[in-house]
C-alpha cells in the first residue's frame, strides 16, 4: 500500500490504551449498522413505512407515541396535528437527508479535488489566490450564502445541493493540495514530467488515485455536516419544497406544538442526531483505517 501521509494537521495522540481501541470498535460497529439501517430505510421507504407520510387522519390527531397513555399501536411514534404518522414521515424524511448529504459531499468533493489538484500541482500565484479564497470561504457562514441564494432565487432541492456543495469544497481542496505538494517532488511524477506527459494526465493518472483515501474521509465528515445544514435550511422553511417530507421541516412544525405534543419535535431531532453521529463515527473509523498513525484534529 502506498504510504499515504494524510497531512491533516494538528497533533493528536495515537490510541493509547487497549480499552479505547475496543470502545472505538464497538462504537464504530454500532455506527455502521445504524448508517446501513438508515440507508435501507431511505431506499425501501415505501415498503417500510406503515402509512403514507402525507395521509391525514383526524381521528388520531396529535396522538402520543404508542407506549404512552392515549397512544395507539397504529402509530408507533404518534401523529402530528393533521393526523399524519410520525414514524412514516421519519422514514421518508431520511431520503432527503441522505440524498442531500451524499450529493452535496460528492459535488464538493469533485470541486475541491479539482481545485486542490490544480492548485497544488501548478502552484504559483494561482495557488496563492485559490488558497486565499479558500480561507475566506472556510469561515464564512454557509448558511448565509444558502439563505442569500434561496432569498434571491427561491428554494428547491437542486439549489440546496448546489449551495452546500459549493460551500464545502475547501476542506477537500486543502487536503488534496497538501497531498499533492508532497507527491509533486516524487520520482514517478518528475519522471513523467521529464518524458513529457501532459499535466492533466499526470494529475488524473498519478495523483488522483493517491488522494482518494483522504478524500473519502473528508467526504464522510462533510456528509454529516451537510445533513445538519439541510435540516437547518428546511427548519427555516428555505429548503426543499414543503410538500416533500424533511426532518428539518418536521422540527419546525413540531416546535409549534411543543407544549402539547413534544414527540413531534423530539423524534426528528433524534433521527438527525443519529444520522450525523453515525456518519461522523464512520468517518473517524475510515480515517483510522487509512492510517492508524495519522495525525488528526
Amino acid at each position, binding site marked *: 500500500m502506498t504510504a499515504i501521509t494524510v497531512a491533516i494537521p494538528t497533533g493528536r495522540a495515537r490510541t493509547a490504551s487497549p480499552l479505547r481501541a475496543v470502545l472505538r470498535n464497538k462504537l464504530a460497529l454500532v455506527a455502521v449498522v445504524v448508517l446501513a439501517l438508515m440507508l435501507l430505510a431511505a431506499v425501501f421507504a415505501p415498503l417500510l413505512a406503515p402509512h403514507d407520510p402525507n395521509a*391525514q387522519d383526524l381521528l388520531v390527531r396529535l396522538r402520543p407515541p404508542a407506549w404512552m397513555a392515549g397512544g395507539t399501536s397504529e402509530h408507533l411514534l404518534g401523529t402530528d396535528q*393533521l393526523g399524519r404518522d410520525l414514524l412514516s414521515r421519519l422514514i421518508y424524511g431520511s431520503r432527503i437527508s441522505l440524498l442531500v448529504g451524499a450529493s452535496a459531499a460528492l459535488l464538493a468533493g469533485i470541486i475541491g479535488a479539482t481545485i486542490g489538484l490544480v492548485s497544488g500541482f501548478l502552484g504559483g500565484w494561482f495557488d496563492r489566490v485559490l488558497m486565499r479564497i479558500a480561507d475566506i470561504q472556510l469561515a464564512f457562514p454557509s448558511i448565509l450564502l444558502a439563505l442569500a441564494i434561496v432569498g434571491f432565487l427561491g428554494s428547491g432541492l437542486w439549489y440546496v445541493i448546489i449551495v452546500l456543495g459549493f460551500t464545502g469544497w475547501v476542506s477537500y481542496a486543502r487536503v488534496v493540495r497538501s497531498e499533492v505538494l508532497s507527491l509533486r517532488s516524487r520520482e514517478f511524477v518528475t519522471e513523467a514530467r521529464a518524458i513529457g506527459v501532459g499535466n492533466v494526465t499526470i494529475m488524473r493518472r498519478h495523483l488522483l488515485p493517491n488522494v482518494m483515501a483522504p478524500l473519502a474521509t473528508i467526504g464522510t465528515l462533510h456528509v454529516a455536516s451537510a445533513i445538519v445544514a439541510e435540516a437547518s435550511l428546511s427548519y427555516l422553511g428555505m429548503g426543499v419544497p414543503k410538500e416533500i417530507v424533511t426532518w428539518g421541516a418536521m422540527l419546525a412544525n413540531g416546535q*409549534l406544538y*411543543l407544549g*402539547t405534543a413534544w414527540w413531534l419535535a423530539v423524534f426528528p431531532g433524534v433521527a438527525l442526531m443519529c444520522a450525523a453521529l453515525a456518519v461522523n463515527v464512520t468517518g473517524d473509523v475510515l480515517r483510522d483505517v487509512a492510517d492508524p498513525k495519522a495525525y488528526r484534529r
Partner: protein
Amino acid sequence: MLRFGTLAVPALALPGLLAGCAGGIASGAAGGALRVAQTSDPKTLDPQKQGDMTSMNVLINLFDTLTTRAADGTLAPRLALSWAALGPLTWRFTLRPGVTFHNGEPCDAAAVKFSIDRLLDPATKSPIVELRYVKSATIVDPLTVDLHTSQPDPILPAKVSLFGGVVLPPKYFAEVGTAGFAKKPVGTGPFVFDSWSRDHELRMHAYAQHWNGPPPVRELVFLPMPNAASSLAALQSNEVDLVTGLTPDAALQLAGYTGVTIESYPGIRTAYLSLDTEDGPLRDKRVRQALNHAVDVPLLIKAVLDGKAREVPTMIPRESFGFDSTIQPFTRDVELAKKLLAEAGYPNGFDTTLTASTADSDVAEAISGLMARAGIRAKVVVIDSGTYSTRLTSDNRRALGPMYLAASTGWTVDGQSNVQSNVRRDRRQSRWTSDAADRLIDGEENSVSDVDRLKAFTGLQQLLKEEAPFIYLYQIDNIYARNERPDWRPNVVGSLTMASARLGDAR
C-alpha cells in the same frame, strides 16, 4: 496574558449589554398600560368605513354606540337611555344627557342625526349593511331622536349596539374633514386616540370625562400578532397582556408554557361553508346534502378544534333569537352520503376546490379529508387573510371559488344577522335562488311580532336543512391567552370592550 485579554473584553461587555436590556425594550412596558393583540390591524379608524370585527374591536373603545350588549347577553343602554317603537316604521331613542366628545363637543340628537345621515350617504360608501332599512333620522329635541325605516325593522335597537350605532362629532368633522378624521378620530368612548403606527401599535389613553367615569386601565394599546408563535414570544417578553381572536389550534400552540393562561368562553360566531348552488355538481341538492352528511362536525370539533366549539344544525347559534332547538343537525353518515351522490349521478364523487384563509387552513384540510371519505376530492386553496376578506366583501360572488369557509359573527344576537348577507338572492354573498327562502327572510326581517318572526325562522331553518345551500359547521368559543396581569371577561359577542378591564398589578 493574551488569553486573559481575549476573555476580558467580551466578559466586561456582557454586564453592560445586559444592564442595557433589563430596562425593558417593549413599547408597552410602561405601568398601567393594557396591551391587547388581534391577528391583524384595523382597516381604518373611520367607524363608518369598516365592516369587520377586527376594526370594530378597536373602535368600540374610542366610540360609544347607542345601545350595547351587556355581559349577561341582554341589550343595555349606552348613549341611548331608552328606546321604543312609535309605529312599524319609527324607533324613538332617548339620549343620555351630559355626554361629551373627546374634543369637548356635546353629544346630542344633532350628533346622532349627523352620524346616521353620513352612514346613509352614498358618498360615504359605507360597507356596514345592518342599517339598510333606515331612511332618515329626525331631531325631536336635543336629547331625543327618531329613526325612520323604509320597512319594519324589529331589531333596530340591537343593530345599533355596534358598527352603524356609532355616534360621530359633527363639529369636529366640519373642522377636519373625512381624511383628517381617519387620521385622528374623536368619539365619546372610554378611551382617547393617541397614535397609530400601522402594523406596529395603536395607542389610546383613558378619557377622564367619560360619562361612565374613567376606565380603570390608564392606557390601551392594540397590537397586530399574525400567528401563535409571535404571540407567545410577545407574551413572554412582556410586550402583550391579552391575545385575542385565537383559533383552537393557535391556543394549542400557546398551551403549556410558563406565564401563559388560556381561557375560553362560549361564543356565537358561526362557521359554515358557502356553496355555489349554480356550479356543476353543487346544483343538485342531493349532492349538497351528501356533503353535509359526509362532514362529520362533532369529529371535526373534537379532533381539530380541541373541543372548543359547538355543533350548529343550520346557520343560527343557540344564543341568538330565532334558534329552533327542534331542528337537528345532519346525521353523519358516509354511506348515506355516497348513496346520495350516486343518486345524483356522481357514483365516483367529483373534484372541486375549497378556499380558506391562512388562519383556517387546518380546518379546511380536515374538512377536505372528511369529504374525501365520500369521494369528493376538494383541493384546498389557502389565501392570506387580507386578500380573503377583500374578495369576500367584493361584488364578485364567485371570487372565492365554488366552496369557501366563512363565519358570521352575528353580533346582534339575532338570527337575522346570521342570514342577512347570504340567503336572500339579492344579498352580496348569496349564491342561492329560492322563492321560499326569500319569503321567509322577508318574514323575519319585516315583522315586528316576535311570534311571527320565530315562525319565519323555524320555516327558514327547516328549508335550509332540506335544501342545504351551505355546509353547516359549528359555533366557536371565544378563546384568549393572557399573562397574569389583565382581569377581563368578554360578552357573548366577544367584542373587545376594554372599559371594564382591570390590571392586576401595579407595574
